[in-house]
């Protein structure tokens, strides 16, 4: 227990942790503030204004049209060729209709909590996962590279316990930070929706689905933190985790993409990690195989491959588990010099 408390204290004494936490809070806060200005509540007055604007636009268009027809008739009477400039029959058939001026187009953007909060859960998860990666990697990486780990092991010669306790301190911190900031984030967007948007049709079911989005976001944050921790511990340096992440990104998003394209693999994107990230947030992601189409037969609905969030859970879960096992295995075996 004392080791766990000590590791928590160590984590929060680190300047990088504090700095990144401040940056995360400022970043998320900034997004919420800027976004709140871009959303406007559609009050009856705003709707009436939009309607009036649409009417004005309609009338203006009608006037322009009438004038054009008149000009065209005059030109025709002078024997000029008007076909090209005004169209056949002086463009009489293109008379503007009122329904072509939907007042909706004049409405400002209004944030719809029910339909759009999911995007912001993903934004939150992305920012916090980045935080988790940097904090997780540097927490153990800096400890290795500065010799702090060796000192600690002189005090606590149980290597696996030490590493596991550090990991536990990291994960509980990430959990706490995510829950606290996630709650604030939800409240912030609820308030934005209440005051500057709409909370219409937010039923218990919507909340439940948002909660599930949140749980998946949390899972991603913790997995990223744990994987970064494991990679930095394996390489005994923070930079090793960063390098591994960049390497994985390059391999997955560029090399594999090019490779499967050249080899002509069907549903090549199923080998690319970002597909699984998308599926994780969207619950499922559909890959299309346009090559199965024969366009000479007209319309075609290409073959589909659906990647579900369960598939993503498997890919990310197994990946994280593998690096964790490797990190603990190495911790048990290696010479610390």
């Amino acid at each position, binding site marked *: 227990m004392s*080791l766990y408390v*000590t590791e928590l204290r160590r984590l929060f*004494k680190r300047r990088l942790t504090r700095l990144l936490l401040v940056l995360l809070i400022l970043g998320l806060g900034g997004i919420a503030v800027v976004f709140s200005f871009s959303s406007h509540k559609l009050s009856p007055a705003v709707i009436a204004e939009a309607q009036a604007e649409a009417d004005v636009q309609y009338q203006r268009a009608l006037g322009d049209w009438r004038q054009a027809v008149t000009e065209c008739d005059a030109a025709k009477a002078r024997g000029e060729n008007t076909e090209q400039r005004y169209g056949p029959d002086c463009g009489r058939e293109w008379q503007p209709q009122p329904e072509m001026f939907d007042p909706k187009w004049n409405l400002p953007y209004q944030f719809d909590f029910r339909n759009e909060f999911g995007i912001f859960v993903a934004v939150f998860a992305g920012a916090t996962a980045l935080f988790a990666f940097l904090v997780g990697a540097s927490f153990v990486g*800096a400890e290795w590279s500065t010799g702090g780990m060796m000192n*600690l092991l002189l005090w*606590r*010669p149980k290597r696996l316990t030490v590493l596991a306790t550090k990991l536990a301190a990291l994960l509980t911190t990430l959990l706490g930070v995510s829950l606290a900031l996630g709650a604030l984030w939800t409240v912030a967007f609820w308030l934005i929706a209440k005051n500057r948007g709409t909370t219409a049709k937010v039923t218990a079911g919507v909340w439940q689905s948002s909660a599930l989005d949140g749980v998946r976001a949390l899972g991603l944050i913790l997995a990223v933190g744990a994987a970064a921790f494991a990679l930095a511990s394996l390489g005994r340096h923070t930079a090793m985790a960063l390098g591994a992440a960049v390497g994985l990104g390059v391999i997955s998003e560029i090399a594999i993409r090019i490779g499967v394209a050249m080899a002509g693999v069907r549903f090549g994107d199923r080998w690319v990690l970002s597909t699984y990230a998308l599926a994780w947030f969207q619950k499922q992601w559909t890959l299309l195989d346009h090559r199965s189409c024969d366009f000479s037969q007209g319309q075609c609905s290409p073959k589909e491959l659906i990647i579900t969030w369960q598939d993503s859970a498997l890919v990310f879960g197994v990946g994280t588990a593998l690096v964790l096992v490797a990190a603990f295995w190495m911790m048990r075996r290696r010479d610390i*010099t």
Partner: protein
Amino acid sequence: MSAVLEIEGLRKTYKSRRRGTRNALDGFDMRVEAGQVHGFLGPNGSGKTTTLRTLLGLIRPDGGRMAMLGHEVPHALPAVAGQVGAIVESPQFFPQFSARDTLALLAGAGEVPPRRVDEVLELVGLRDRAGERVKTYSLGMKQRLAVASALLKNPKLLILDEPANGLDPGGIREMRTLVRDLAAAEMTVLLSSHILGEIQLICDSVTIISLGRRVAFGPVDQVLAQHSQGAVRVRLEAVTDLPAAAEALIRAGVRVTGHPDHLMLSGVDKPAIVSRLLAEQGLYVSELAPVVVDLESVFLELTATAPVPGQHRQVDQSTKVGEPGQPGATTGGWGA
């Protein structure tokens, strides 16, 4: 006396794909008695740090047995760790933390009362600078912090790998007093150092290692005595009598080296015999002094690392015990 530290036949082989294997420890033995200050000496790369790391569970041995405070390690290391304080080769600390934070975190991990932190800071002379970041410390200040971290547990066995590294003259003297005080308080101290004058002053006994094997061990004066090999310096009242004296002594089977104003004898068990022999010849001795060798010359002789003019000794050139044709291969009872 009971042994606080026992090592028998310890082996450690570093393997490298390109350079093959290196036997850093090659059947090394060591024994430290309770309450002693024990010096651990050896040339660079002889295996001192490797021994200490192995003892503390940082690296795995390839063979041999070790025990600390009566427990077999590394198996029982968790049980004894609380009673063993150690620094291994200028330890590094997290540069952004202050000395006090660093020690407080260690104290927390080791379940040591926090008040002990200020005690040890006072002890190593860092009290007034304890709030500053370790990054800004000088070499000697970091070394002091390291010693403080080793003392934090108030250990029964204190292992210090080159603690004087980077200390100023005052610091070295303080370290000497500190170690003596700790020993007086029944702490056993194992001290590795290259400053042999210091070792000779503070240690009760020593172990000398060369190329991963023990070349000598025992109480300091015993090791010194065995290596002075009965050297005696003789002066006579009349310098002109020296040749006659030399002749008489050689006849009596003593090895003699002549000097302009004195004779150096070796292989003398009892200096009194010399004065009797010479008195029988009517020669009067004005000085008869057993020559005191210092630890440094014994060390250089035992490890065969004394500089030779015109040669540049490379790091792994030193005594290898147990190999024929090497100096030190037959070092009598006190060699391993």
